[in-house]
């Protein structure tokens, strides 16, 4: 899951980045509105956490521009305490949630999870297919009740596939959501194939009852029902 944090306050930005990274999210940062828009146009994100008060271009303008360009990534706004007017305006412009500063890190993470679930049409914090479970809160994966050790990238791939259950995910969009756009697409599709192979190996996914199925030439899909 790729998250973009936009804030002009350097220390807060770094703190958030560290915390979110420790939760195995892929995090990108922007220091102002223009940079944020630039990044949004470059590659898709799954969540935007954005301060409203910013130099150059404020958060509301970024939001407005992004929605106009049909970027429907969920947006979590960070506002000053009691700034009701801005909150209302933000929500009207298409923000999905807000959080008043100062906030606790746990609350931010919880809201982030909730927004990510909603966008993936999942409502429960635990994503499940067959006997494979991925807990988005504790960031743990179990297969048949036994814990599975995954690397950060493997976790992100599995998480993204589970969020998009029953939908084919192309290699490229998987790569974009897990790595961002800094890599060569061909390198990335190789990355994906190798990671999927390792992932399958770790969750004991082989033989006929494949959890992660390959759609030849396109990408991968996780389906609810075993066929």
């Amino acid at each position, binding site marked *: 899951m790729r998250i973009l944090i936009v804030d002009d306050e350097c220390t807060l930005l770094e703190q958030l980045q560290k915390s979110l990274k420790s939760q195995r999210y892929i995090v990108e940062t922007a220091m102002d509105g223009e940079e944020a828009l630039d990044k949004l*146009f*470059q590659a898709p994100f799954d969540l935007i956490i954005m301060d409203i008060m910013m130099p150059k271009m404020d958060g509301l303008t970024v939001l407005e521009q992004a929605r106009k360009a049909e970027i429907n990534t969920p947006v979590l706004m960070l506002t000053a305490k009691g700034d009701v007017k801005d909150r209302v305006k933000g929500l009207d412009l298409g923000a999905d949630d807000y959080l008043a500063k100062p906030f606790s890190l746990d609350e931010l993470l919880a809201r982030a999870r909730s927004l990510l679930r909603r966008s993936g049409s999942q409502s429960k914090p635990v994503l499940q297919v067959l006997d494979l479970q991925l807990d988005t809160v504790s960031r743990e994966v179990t297969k048949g009740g036994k814990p599975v050790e995954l*690397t950060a*990238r493997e976790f992100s791939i599995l998480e993204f596939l589970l969020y998009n259950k029953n*939908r*084919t*995910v*192309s290699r*490229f*969009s998987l790569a974009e959501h897990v*790595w961002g*756009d*800094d*890599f*060569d*697409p*061909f*390198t990335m599709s*190789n*990355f994906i*194939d*190798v*990671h999927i*192979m*390792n992932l399958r190996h770790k969750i004991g996914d082989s033989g006929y009852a494949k959890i992660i199925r390959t*759609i030849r*030439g*396109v*990408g991968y899909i996780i389906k609810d029902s075993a066929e």
Partner: protein
Amino acid sequence: MTVKKRITLLIIAAGLVSGLLFSATVFYELIEQPFDILDAVLKEEAYRAARMSVMKQKESGSAPFDSTADAIYPYWIEIYEQGTDRMLYQSGLARLATLSPVKAGASAIASVIIPRELIDLDQDRVQEVTFRVRTFLVPLDGRVFSVQIARPIEKLEEEIWDLVLGLFAGFIFSCIALIAISHFMAGKILEPIGKMKELTRQISEENLDKRITTGQGRDEFSELARTINWMLDRLQDSFVRQRNFLFDTSHELKTPLTTMRLAIDEICTSETDNLPVLAKENLFQLNNYVLRMERLVKDLLNLSSLETMTVIDRKPVYMTELLSSLATDYRVLADAQKIQMDIHLPPQLSIQGDMEKINRAFSNILDNAVKYNVDGGRIEVVGAQSEDDLTITVTNAGPGVAEAEIDKVFDQFYRVEKSRSLQHGGSGLGLSIVKRIVELHKGKVTFESRQGDWTRVTVSLPRHREM
């Protein structure tokens, strides 16, 4: 030869020529003048002597007039009547020395030895006395006398010699002065050029907005400076326009490409089973090409925005962590190709720089190291840092690059092997981007390779803001 030397030499040459001409004129004038005066004196004396001897002859018959008494009389005179051999007069000097006859009207310089004991004429040791000899035809009482008259010019010669020496010394002196002055003048003349050169040298791609300071004057140098500035204006203009064009084009291309990709993605991820096989194949191929295009456009945008940049935001970048994290990603790929990856990074490597860009640079380098490798090959990443510099070398086994091609690897769109690269999907801009990023950090990147064996990319970066 430098212009300064040339100007110096030209000034010296001009000075010398005019000095020489001047000296020659002065010399000639000074040489001729005393002789003219002397000749006038000689003529007067000749007439006087002729008159005197005619007078004396009338008084004392036909015997030649003798004047041994006036031994100090400094003239050598012999007077003959024209057409006869009869000598009318012979001065004391004429008896001591014999001078060869000179034609009437002509003049000559003759030297004879007259011992000092006989007469003191300021002879030097050689006792040779130089005479100015002239012969005049003097008409007197209806007769014509041929008067050969001479006068020692020992002193005159000495003076002339002094004059020559003086002129020569003056000439040498003025030469030295000329060299000094012309050197100084050349420097003075070229001073604006030197300033212009210094300023022009400072102007590069990075600060094309810099201009040469032009004086208020309307002289040639100010004109030149203005012309250069004008040229720079146009250069900057076209440079900026070209850069903007590249940036704008890439940007314009991006939106339709993204739309295309999304459309293809949508078809691909929906049910493709009922599509005809050919359509499916074409769709996948289309997808591949759109991805490649998108990558190319992204790299172009990256490169052009890097080109526009002149300074970067420097923050601490923890290189050990950054490289380890990148290596973790690429190790997965390397493992799949059975490529052994060795990472030797001391802890706490760090620089001041732009993390995102540094990450992109090393991602490109590692990408190449995996792509242009062989199955069962090797990649070695070694890092080291000193007080001022950080050096990272990435060495990989692989086909390498021919020596003649090495200079071209940083060129845009250079590919070692077209077919191989296309299969790998590189944009051909990877190393150009690396180079630009390293340059922005004021670092250096070098590429070494032995064909068929290995390739090594070395990046060294200054660790602190400005060196």
